[in-house]
């Protein structure tokens, strides 16, 4: 019996080639799109789940409650570690500190200065106790390899990169930042890419204790850096809530006695949230909000739903043509259940073909999607998990698409069916088909509006006045060590002689970055303010290099130490000072340290990404913190100038690797996730519109056949081609307008919420909505037009004869 079903199904597909093609194309695209989106979502959800104690691992994080706002920090004061161990003896704690952009020098036979590698990420000072919390596989050595100072553990990949193979790396010595010799004492098997702890170069924590100042490592209770994280493995069955209560008591005990300008508390963040809580940073390359994942899953679901809608619409419409077959089968003894199974089998065949096509599409587009979603891990569609998921999608789609047509067709009255008396209206699907078309166009229009808003916001960001010059500024990363600093003046002089160089500034940070270096402070000998000030240290050419604008006072004077301060407008506003000149000559005290005279006020510029408010800022000189060299280049002959800069760098700092980036590109990276999301919106909105049109085309094709006689009679009676076009397009136009009234408010609500992520946002213009409705109607008319014109231009005599 089943064989017969399949046979009939296959032949029916072949017979109704056009409709089958529409169904298979729509379903394939829908399945492929949702499959890829679900793979991305599933990948994001898989972060660190390979850890055997995933559910019991937590990070101890910090919340600082000020008068008006709350700040969160993934770090915790270093001094808290031993206090936590004493307070919670049943919990295993392990700490690590990340460093960024450090240089690793590997001895090389043919190279006097050795091979230099810049480790942008993946490099940590790490306690051996961290391996009590996290489990990793070792190729050589073990947690004890990190017991002593000047020991390093490499992962297999990095060991290979440095020495050719991990076996050759063992026992060799590398140098960190041209200063610290490290012996390779263990090799870790590569950590999977879906981890927020990308462990590559692990240096014993005792090494950090010996070189603390070089890495701004402060072991007191006052300093909290997001680079220093403590992880905890809770005992089985431990209650997180009760430990959090104990941590609250612990925080109060520790900070009350130390005097504070905020209420600082620590609490547990489950490992399962490290990848998803955007209040905190992670050591991984990105933190994804669960809202984004839900949005992507919904888009996937909607796309597949739209493809199913096409299937349902076309199948119920086509069922009119198949009624005779249903009648015959009933007469020959088929019962309703058998017919239901038959039609479901046909759906399954079409879905099966679509799944195979979708796998092909998925296979070809997976590398592209991986690139958009920044997935590093090699992904394959052909893993049991993903194949299981695809099978699930296949079954789900078969049921979703097949149930209604099967139900409708198996219910046909055999006598009417045999006489082909089942007309479109009697299939009872007309109102359903209209509702489904409305649903499709609602989804399409929501996606069109969302895409337009996302693109406009991205354009707004890229064109927004950031308050500084970001074009043609080359930023060189270096180490702020004494060797580096000792040659800075001469290095700058040489750079200034290069023809394409306009100005050079040494600094701790560029004007806008993700870095946060903040401290409590007091203005003009008053008590500490209830908010923190962000610090940047730079030489006197900083203002010129980045095109900043002084509102009052003057520039800093050159000094190797901190002597004077320049503030920004936001800081003045927060202090309640209206006139910038009022602060000139007053003082500012940082932490419990010295007070510095305020010599200037800068016009506000964006100190961080446009998601956040401008921070209150102080800029001052301090050579020991200058690790970056910012070079403003003249716009002509950029490549030659850049080559000249590298040449000068190599001459001055042969022992340092040359790493340069353009400042505008660094800024663009702030919005990488939004750009990705915007790109995904564009792709999937396009697909949604395509699938809707495919369905519409199918329905109109069917309508054209059904209306052959009506069109013929109307033409004989004198109807014009345009009035016939109206006959076809009127209904769909009305449906699209109805869709818009649903889509408009939904899209407005969704995008209004999304824009809230940005402090600086593009207006939610009415044009987005107008373009969505006008665009949808135009696209629908073009889709309908071809078929409608063909029907309208057909010879009426032929049309009537065919009846």
């Amino acid at each position, binding site marked *: *019996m089943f064989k*017969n079903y399949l*046979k*009939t199904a296959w*032949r*029916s597909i072949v*017979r109704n080639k056009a409709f089958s093609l529409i169904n298979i194309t729509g379903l394939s695209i829908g399945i492929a799109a949702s499959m890829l989106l679900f793979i991305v979502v599933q990948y994001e959800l898989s972060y660190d789940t390979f850890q055997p104690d995933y559910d019991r691992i937590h990070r101890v994080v910090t919340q600082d409650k000020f008068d008006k706002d709350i700040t969160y920090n993934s770090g915790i004061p270093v001094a808290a570690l031993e206090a936590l161990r004493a307070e919670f003896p049943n919990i295993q704690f392990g700490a690590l500190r990340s460093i960024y952009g450090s240089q690793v020098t590997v001895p090389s036979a043919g190279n006097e200065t050795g091979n230099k590698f810049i480790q942008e990420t993946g490099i940590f000072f790490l306690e051996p106790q961290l391996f009590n919390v996290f489990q990793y596989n070792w190729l050589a050595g073990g947690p004890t390899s990190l017991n002593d100072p000047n020991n390093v553990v490499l992962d297999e990949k990095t060991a290979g990169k440095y020495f050719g193979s991990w076996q050759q790396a063992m026992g060799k010595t590398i140098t960190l930042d041209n200063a610290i010799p490290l012996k390779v004492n263990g090799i870790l098997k590569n950590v999977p890419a879906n981890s927020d702890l990308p462990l590559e170069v692990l240096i014993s924590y005792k090494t950090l204790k010996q070189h603390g100042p070089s890495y701004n490592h402060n072991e007191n209770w006052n300093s909290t850096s997001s680079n220093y994280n403590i992880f905890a493995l809770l005992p089985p069955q431990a209650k997180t809530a009760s430990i959090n209560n104990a941590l609250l008591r612990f925080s109060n005990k520790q900070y009350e006695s130390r005097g504070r300008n905020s209420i600082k508390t620590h609490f547990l963040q489950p490992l399962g949230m490290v990848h998803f809580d955007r209040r905190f940073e992670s050591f991984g390359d990105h933190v994804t909000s669960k809202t984004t994942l839900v949005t992507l899953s919904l888009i996937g679901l909607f796309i597949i739903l739209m493809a199913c809608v096409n299937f349902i619409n076309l199948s119920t419409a086509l069922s009119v043509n198949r009624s*005779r*077959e249903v*009648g*015959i*089968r*009933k*007469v*020959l*003894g*088929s*019962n*309703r259940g*058998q017919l239901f199974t038959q039609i479901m089998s046909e759906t399954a065949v079409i879905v099966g073909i679509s799944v195979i096509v979708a796998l092909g599409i998925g296979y070809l587009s997976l590398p592209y999607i991986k690139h958009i979603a920044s997935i590093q891990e090699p992904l394959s569609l052909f893993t049991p998990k993903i194949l299981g998921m695809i099978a699930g999608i296949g079954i789900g789609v078969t049921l979703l698409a097949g149930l209604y047509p099967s139900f409708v067709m198996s219910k046909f009255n*055999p*006598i009417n069916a*045999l006489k082909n008396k089942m007309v479109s209206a009697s299939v009872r699907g007309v109102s359903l088909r209209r509702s489904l078309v409305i649903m499709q166009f609602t989804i399409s229009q929501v996606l069109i509006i969302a895409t337009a808003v996302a693109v406009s916001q991205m354009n707004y960001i890229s064109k927004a006045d950031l308050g500084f010059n970001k074009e043609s500024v080359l930023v060189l990363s270096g180490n702020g060590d004494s060797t580096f600093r000792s040659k800075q003046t001469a290095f700058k002089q040489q750079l200034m002689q290069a023809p394409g160089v306009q100005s050079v500034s040494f600094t701790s940070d560029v004007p806008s970055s993700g870095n946060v270096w903040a401290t409590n402070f007091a203005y003009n000998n008053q008590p500490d303010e209830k908010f923190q000030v962000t610090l940047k240290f730079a030489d006197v050419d900083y203002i010129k290099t980045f095109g900043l604008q002084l509102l009052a006072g003057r520039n800093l004077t050159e000094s190797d130490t901190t002597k004077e301060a320049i503030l920004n407008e936001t800081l003045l506003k927060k202090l309640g000072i209206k006139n910038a000149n009022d602060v000139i000559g007053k003082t500012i005290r940082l932490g419990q340290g010295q007070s510095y005279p305020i010599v200037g006020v800068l016009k506000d510029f964006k100190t961080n990404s446009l998601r956040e408010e401008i921070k209150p800022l102080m800029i001052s000189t301090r050579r020991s913190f200058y690790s970056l060299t910012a070079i403003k280049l003249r716009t002509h002959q950029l490549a030659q100038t850049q080559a000249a800069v590298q040449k000068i760098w190599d001459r001055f700092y042969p022992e340092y690797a040359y790493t340069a980036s353009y400042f505008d590109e660094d800024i663009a990276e702030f919005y990488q996730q939004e750009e990705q999301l915007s790109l995904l919106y564009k792709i999937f909105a396009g697909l949604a519109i395509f699938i809707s049109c495919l369905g519409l085309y199918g329905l109109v094709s069917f309508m054209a056949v059904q209306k052959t006689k009506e069109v013929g009679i109307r033409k004989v009676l004198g109807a014009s081609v345009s009035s016939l076009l109206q006959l076809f397009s009127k209904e769909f136009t009305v449906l699209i307008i109805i869709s818009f009234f649903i889509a408009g408010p939904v899209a407005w609500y969704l995008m209004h919420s999304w824009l809230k992520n940005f402090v600086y946002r593009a207006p939610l213009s009415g044009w987005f909505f107008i373009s969505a409705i006008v665009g949808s109607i135009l696209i629908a008319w073009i889709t309908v037009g071809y078929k409608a014109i063909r029907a309208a231009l057909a010879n009426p005599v032929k049309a009537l004869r065919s009846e």
Partner: protein
Amino acid sequence: MIKIRDLEKIYRTEEVETVALNKISIDVKEGEFVAIMGPSGCGKSTLLNILGLLDDPDTGSFLFNNIEVANFNERKRAELRKHNIGFVFQSFNLIDELTVFENVELPLIYTGVKSVDRKKRVEEVLDKMQIMHRRNHYPQQLSGGQQQRVAVARAVVNNPKLILADEPTGNLDSSNGNEVMTLLTDLNEQGTTIIMVTHSEHDARYSHRIIRMLDGQTVLENIMV
């Protein structure tokens, strides 16, 4: 074999009520060949549909082999139909997506006959209907006469006790029509009961008895000698 009493079937729309069968009573004995005639709209097809268990009457009694089937639900009707009744239609009603062999095989599939037995039985019937050489063709590749022979083959493949034929020669030329009527006569001679609706006096002469209908009632019965 068939005994119907006071059978009534009324079709209602919002405004119109049409009496298709008006308290009609008919008996058909096993092995009989009965022709039903009458003008269009007299209720012939409605009667045939009820006899074929495709439709149910509003009131009245319908005994099929002494079992009251008037109130059977769809599942029971389908069960009884597939084991006992074969149909031949004016427009052949073959499934376009299936070959000749597969069309004839279909009733056997629904009655759960094993594949090997099905093949044997279908080949026997196709042979008998002299259409074996067309077994792998699709209906559109056959002439009208050939299509109706396939339809007859499909109707008899399950060895039904009753064959209902609804104007079986209506779409055929006289030569092919005669061929089909001969086939039906042969089947009847082998013991199958046949009830045939027809407009053709010529075809009706092949039967044992002609029931003439008008306005949903029997008005005359001719016994053929």
